[in-house]
């Protein structure tokens, strides 16, 4: 057992530093994942920086505001909000087999 005076002096307040995946790979929470149909997706189709509802409404910050938008499936919890909020129904929730 390490019990020297110096050791305990390093343990002060419970302090956090930022990490990704604090709760682990939350992508494992659901087998259903959003798949974007780039034929329909407005920015993908038009090449213009517009719409991005999937990015805006994502509670988990797993969608990028890029053309086309990309979804980090490692962390996506599969809530389906992006599917609901896509104005052109470009997103479908599909079962993705994970190991």
């Amino acid at each position, binding site marked *: 057992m390490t019990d020297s005076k110096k050791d305990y002096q390093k343990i002060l307040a419970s302090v956090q530093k930022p990490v990704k995946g*604090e709760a*682990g790979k*939350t992508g494992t929470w659901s087998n259903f994942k959003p798949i974007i149909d780039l034929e329909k997706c407005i920015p993908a189709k038009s090449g213009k920086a517009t719409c991005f509802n999937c990015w805006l*409404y994502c*509670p988990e910050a797993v969608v990028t505001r890029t053309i086309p938008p990309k979804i980090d499936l490692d962390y996506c919890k599969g809530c389906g909000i992006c599917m609901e909020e896509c104005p052109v129904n470009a997103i479908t929730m599909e079962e993705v087999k994970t190991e």
Partner: protein
Amino acid sequence: MVNVMDVREEEFINPGTRMCSGCAMALIYRIALKALGPKTIITVPASCLTVLHGMQGFCTTKVSVLHTPFATTGASASGIVASLEEKGLADEICVVAFAGDGGTADIGIQALSGAVERGTNFIYACYDNEAYMNTGVQRSGSTPLGAFTATTPGGKIRPKKNMPKILEAHGIPYVATANGSYPLDLYEKFQKAREIKGSKYIHILSACPPGWGYDPKDTIKLGKLANDTGFWPLYEIINGKLIISKDSKKYLDPSKRKPIQDYFKAQKRFNNISQDEIEVYRRNIDDLWNDFKRRLESQ
């Protein structure tokens, strides 16, 4: 009005939080932090947001956060602001208290009232999921009439406490309501609040899939129904002047509002709401909007 490309692209919450799938609060907090930017210190009482921040050692957010006991949010913010003022950093760093409805309308109301009465230069944001969701859905002062919770199994018999009105009565420069389903409006309100000196209060309706009883994918729809039925209007009161926000303005015309039952039917917590209670809601919503109308005409 900001558009989607005006919203800061940088994220201040790392993916992989402990929040439930489809949590509106996670979205609200994400958008609010974008509006606030990196020069921000947050203080958070016991709530779902504590859990969002993560356990010991590692957090999800990229701004500093002081966790504080349930009843203390307003006082905690005052303490941070006082220390920043002592150091001459108060103009540079924005202090934001972020609490749930229990921490705001119930156990924390005294500290909140004290903090804004003192004119503390901070933003107090209440994300209102209308019950103690973090402890397993018990009723709060902000739970609406007729809603089922674990402690109101027969439906709540008292209406929701009107916190924005209470805060307005303190004579603070900025009071606003917001809704997780209107992130651009929310973003703009946080940006605006950040620029105003003094105490700012933003009360945000936050849909909760497990607590309200609906599919996580419908979070945005639920919030929109709350707006479309006239139940949760979006507005600002800037130095006493009422401004109905763009997304709610049309509901000054009662014929544009959807029936309140549409909102109730979309969630299980209102399964047993009575016809009498629905009548109370209709009346209250009419009264609320009639008050707005009179006020807009007189100012």
